[in-house]
Every structure is written in structure tokens, then in C-alpha cells.
């Protein structure tokens, strides 16, 4: 998994996170921990839902369980966007 997430993708991830958590955008940075942002497991699934809608991707449960911080979250999202680009949309999973 590449760590070089394009800045516009990262920005959209942070914005989606802030909107879902009802937080000011400036409070959400790539270095923020889920704990600092008050994100519990239920918030987590709401965020995954919002990201799936924002990027038109499907985030598998297995991948979601691995995510420990915002950097990993953004990397995971970017990787799913890339794999979506490589297969016809109706078979993307």
C-alpha cells in the first residue's frame, strides 16, 4: 500500500471525517488520533459509510478492522479508489 496519498484525496477524507463527526475541519489533521477526535466504534461505521458514499467505493470489513489511524484510513481509501479504476465498476468490490 502506497503512503503517497494525493493531497486532494487526503483533504476529502479529512472533510468527510469532520462532517461525520460534526467537528470543525481545522481540528481534524492527518496526525489526529481517533481517540483525540472522540471516535468510537459506532462513529467508525458511520465514517466508513460516509467514505463509501463520498468516493463510491466499498470498504471491506476486514480492511476496516485493520485501520488504526487517519493516515492508514486515507491510504486504504486511496488504494480502493485505485483498484476501482482498474476494474469495471460493476465488479468492483
Amino acid at each position, binding site marked *: 500500500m502506497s503512503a503517497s496519498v494525493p493531497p486532494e484525496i487526503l483533504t476529502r477524507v479529512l472533510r468527510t471525517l469532520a462532517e461525520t463527526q460534526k467537528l470543525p475541519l481545522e481540528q481534524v489533521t492527518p496526525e489526529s488520533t481517533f481517540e483525540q477526535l472522540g471516535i*468510537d*466504534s*459506532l462513529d467508525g*461505521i458511520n465514517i*466508513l*459509510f460516509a467514505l463509501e458514499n463520498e468516493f463510491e467505493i466499498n470498504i*471491506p*470489513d476486514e480492511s*476496516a478492522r485493520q485501520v488504526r489511524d487517519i493516515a492508514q484510513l486515507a491510504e486504504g481509501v486511496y488504494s480502493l479508489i485505485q483498484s476501482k479504476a482498474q476494474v469495471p465498476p460493476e465488479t468492483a468490490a
Partner: protein
Amino acid sequence: MIRRVAVTGIGAVSALGGTAAEFWEACRQGRSGIGPLEGLPLEGVRIQTGAQALGFDPSKHFDDKQLVPLDRFAQLAIVAAREALAQSGLALRAEEKTRAAIVTGSCYGGKTSEDQGFRSLYFDRSPRVHPMTIPRLMANAGASALTLELGWQGPAWTVSTACSSANHAIGQAFWLVRHGLAEVALAGGSEAPFTYGSLKAWEALRVASPDTCRPFSKGRGGMVLGEGAGMLVLEPLERAQARGAPVLAEIAGFAMGADAHHITQPSAAGAARMMREALAGAGCEAGEIGVVNAHGTGTAINDVVEAAALREVFGAGLDGIRVSATKSLHGHALGASGALEAVSVLLGLRDQSVAPTANFVEADPECPVPLATAFEPFAHRKALSNSFAFGGLNAVLVFSLSE
């Protein structure tokens, strides 16, 4: 007035078969009813398995006219109730029928009918839905249909507390009979949760397993939905003995309460308090319990929290207990689960054995419990059955062989 309450009949329809006897035979064999889902559109659905009551054929139990107002969840309740009543041999005089209670549990009610009706409105642009849509989808449809079939006119209602519904229903019926507010009661739960919309909703919550249900096991991937019904006939022990009825066991105690903690996360403190209160209600010590039918959903968090709560309540004594998590066999039948689990506990007490937990791979140090992983003979006098619902609403029953 405080009376001892006997269970004199049980009925079960589930993925394990159409009767309590078939249910128990599958438990004996450790044969799980979980398999690939059938008869549903599954394209784009992550959930591909479930514990469906595939052998259930409504036409064997109802004529076409009877089926018109009955959703599958109500059909299941009626069939399980008929079995329980036949076993108990209960016959009521006309004046007793006004004191005969029916308490059913259901999380969803007539979800299948609702799904079909609304689908025809939204997608087929149908100008109307079937006029029986409301009678079919109301959560009390099973209870109401049973009052009509039996002519019982006492207290009748339906409890909807997600995964604890049936335990709440059985517990409240137990209290009615115990305190003389009803002479007899029929109690349990039923659920028919398999619709496309419902699968997508569970998928979104990210607690469903991609394959099977492995409670308390390393590598468990979550819960697996099930469908079915379980029903119990409750009556005063004295009445049962006087008429020579078969007494499976007594319900000795019941407790219910709220975690007030989180809408989906369980609480070890809440679960432990509920077990303690149920034991206190039964007037028994933790050390007297031989078998615990765990809530045991097979989700990452439930099993860790429940294991901690069990250790807190039973201490070192837990190691002498058998923990059985039968959702691995009959699936998580939501509002019916507690009733199916009660059937497994009652038959376990009758046969002095314990139903197994299927699909177990390896112990998880995060949730160590003395799990029964194969059907085994096990001498015990008392058993406890846990239900801990989403929303933090908990209900625990204690069953006891009569002295």
C-alpha cells in the same frame, strides 16, 4: 401470592428443524443450521450465509385462507406454540381462558411483508399495497393470531427489545404466573428477518460474519442471522403436578435492566449485574449454576465483554460450569433467540447434558470461558440463559429442575 412456575411444553421451529425434537437432535450432532442463503437477491450483499428455516412449509400448517393475514414470523410463532401446547396437554375451562396470557417477542415483526409491500410501491409503481400489510407487519401479529386460535382472552402483548425480546417475553410471562396475575401463559419469540433490506442494514453495521458463527473462538468473524420461533407453556407447578403434566423444569428467576451505556456496545458491568439479579430472584447462589447459555453472538466485542462478566459473577467457579453458545447452531434469530436458547437449556436439564457450541476453532485469550464444544453428558440442576440486546437492554433467566 407467590407460586412456583413450571415449563410443561416447548416448541421450536428453526434452521435445525420443524420441532423441538429435531432441534435437539441437531444439537446432539453438533450440526449447525448455518448455510448459504436461499431465495433472496444476494447480488452486492456481503452477507451470504444465514440460518434459515428451509424445511418450514406453511401449507403443511395453514390453509390458504388462514395464510392471508399471516407474515412468516407469525406463522412460525403459531406452529411453535401448537407444538408446545400439544406437549403440555394443557386444557383450559372457558372461565380460565380470561386468565391465560400470551407474551411474544419479536425484533422486526412482519418485515418480509413490509419489504414486499413497499418494494411494490417504490419500484413497481404499484398504486396500492395489499390491505393485509398492516395486520401482517404489526409486531403483535403472532400474539394476536394465537389469541384467535386458542380463544385465550387474558393479558396478551408483544415485547420488542431487539436480541433480548424472547427473554423479556418469557420473563414477564413468568412473573405473571408467579404472582397470580395469570393462571397460565404461553411465551417465547419468533423472527423472520431475511429480506434484502434487512441484510443490507446488518451489513452496514459491520457485525455480520462473512461465513459462520464461532462464539468465543479465535478468528470469529461476527454474528450470523437466523430465523425461527420458540414457545414455552408456563403454569403453576402445583397445577402441573395435580394434572400429571410433564414438567421439564421450573423458571426460577428473571431479571431485566438497562446498561445505560451505549447504543450498540455491550457493558460487562450491566451484564454482570443482570446475572446477579436473576440469581437473587431465583434465590440461588452462583455456585449452584451448572450451565450457562451465553448470549454468545460471535462478534469480536460481545464475547470479550460477556466472558469478563461471566468471570466477574462466577469467579473461579466459572471453570466448573459449561458455557454453551447455541447461536452457532440456530443462528442469531434476534427476537426468537432467547426462546430457542431456552429450549436448548430445558432439554439439557431434562437429559442432563449440554448443547454444544459449533464452529469453534481455537480458544481466544481475550474471552476465555469453559465452552462446551461437543454435546456431552453433564449433571446439573440449574442453568442460566443470557440475552443482551443492542440498545443495552438485558434479560436473564434462571431455570431449575424441580426438587
